[in-house]
């Protein structure tokens, strides 16, 4: 199975308007920047993005906002931490103007929802968010004397993920903390597109060190290592 696409533009070419897209990466770390840039060039509109944040480390996501490609964002840490920086952010402005809808979950609930979506689990009970605004509209239930919220699975049409190494069959190995959300996002999507720094032949990856099995990945594209200095 050769899943290699010639370039990022070809890999995202068929994404239709209205798609939901999960995007891996924790701030700048392990973010599939070249795929986000290709999506900005491609121009699909009315998108739902599922990603940690829409502010810091997201210049390229900001471009999608400026292009008016985004309808909704599902996040756990969407905004800049600083109100000052936030007030300059295109995303925050769009949210305040009511142009983009935002849904926020605690980090663990956010990623557990995606994992549930990818693994056939319809819903789960988590203690996180009980007694807070997060429980609004959700079913509460007591197990062994403790309150839990029912949260439901989240699936999406596409996932953009990033990996240090990948083979042509879609097996991916991440590096250090660049792994973060990428594995579970790959599982939650109908079509996962992987941007890989080092494209290898089958058999060249250590099979005990594959973090994202190829079965979850439909397209692989080689990219140059993005250059950035981690910072908020």
């Amino acid at each position, binding site marked *: 199975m050769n899943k290699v696409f010639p370039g990022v533009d070809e890999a995202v070419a068929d994404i239709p308007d209205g798609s939901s897209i999960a995007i891996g990466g924790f701030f700048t770390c392990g973010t599939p920047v070249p795929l986000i840039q290709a999506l900005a060039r491609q121009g699909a509109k009315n998108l739902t993005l599922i990603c940690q944040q829409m502010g810091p480390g997201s210049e390229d996501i900001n471009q999608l906002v400026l292009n008016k490609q985004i309808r909704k964002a599902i996040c756990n840490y969407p905004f800049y931490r600083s109100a000052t920086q936030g007030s300059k952010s295109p995303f925050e402005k769009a949210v305040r103007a009511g142009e983009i809808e935002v849904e926020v979950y605690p980090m*663990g609930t956010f990623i557990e929802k995606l994992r549930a979506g990818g693994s056939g689990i319809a819903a789960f009970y988590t203690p996180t968010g009980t007694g807070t605004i997060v429980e609004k509209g959700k079913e509460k239930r007591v197990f062994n004397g403790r309150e839990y919220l029912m949260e439901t699975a989240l699936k999406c049409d596409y996932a953009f993920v990033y990996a240090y190494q990948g083979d042509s069959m879609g097996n991916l190995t991440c590096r250090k*903390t660049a792994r973060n959300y990428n594995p579970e996002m790959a599982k939650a999507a109908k079509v996962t597109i992987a941007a890989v720094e080092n494209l290898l032949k089958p058999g060249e990856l250590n099979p005990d060190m594959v973090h994202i099995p190829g079965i979850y990945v439909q397209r692989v594209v080689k990219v140059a290592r993005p250059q950035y200095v*981690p910072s908020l």
Partner: protein
Amino acid sequence: MVRKFEGLPRELIALRVARELEDGTYVNLGIGIPTLVSNWIEGRDIILQAEIGMLNTGPLAEGDNIDQDLINAGCQPVTELPGACYFSDFESISMIRGGFIDVAVLGSLQVSEKGDMAGWFNPERGFTGGVGNIGGSMDLAVGAKKVIIAMTHLTDKGDPKIVKECTYPLTAKGVVKLIMTDLAVIEVTPQGLLLKEVAPGVSAEDVQSVTYAKLIISPNLIEIGL
């Protein structure tokens, strides 16, 4: 409210927190003053967890040591110590929510006398509908075996952060065990807030004067030892 006395600098709040941590424990440090705790535990048998997906985080990286694939939850470049390991964020939060973190040291905007904390959402940002930056804070607050709040006693505007009831949106209810500020060390007990230590030159009355909740003065009240 005008404060007439000086408290500890942020670095020394962090040092006091570090003294509270026991060897042989797994600890998660939040953003802000909690992050500074890492400066005081070098060489100790304490393993730091970062919710991005790492155990045994080392000191901040500088210069050529910066690796863009190695950051902490605050997006700072860090280093790894021998025995470090990496995993997904899913695994990381499972670990946190599953009760494997001995101590989470977190900042907060408000803490109540019942141990409620409100740290993720400042209504002054003016969003509605409950959207804001939750991140891993709620999972840490409900999952860690012990939650220590490390913060300044007052806001930049001089408002007390320790209150009878939180007025800001909660991070979690009844989870805080210990509050460490520039002025005091306060334990959350079933009877209320127990003032155990005060900063040098600060009296129990001084602390109460900038605290909205009623403090119980410990019979063994001491000066914060550093």
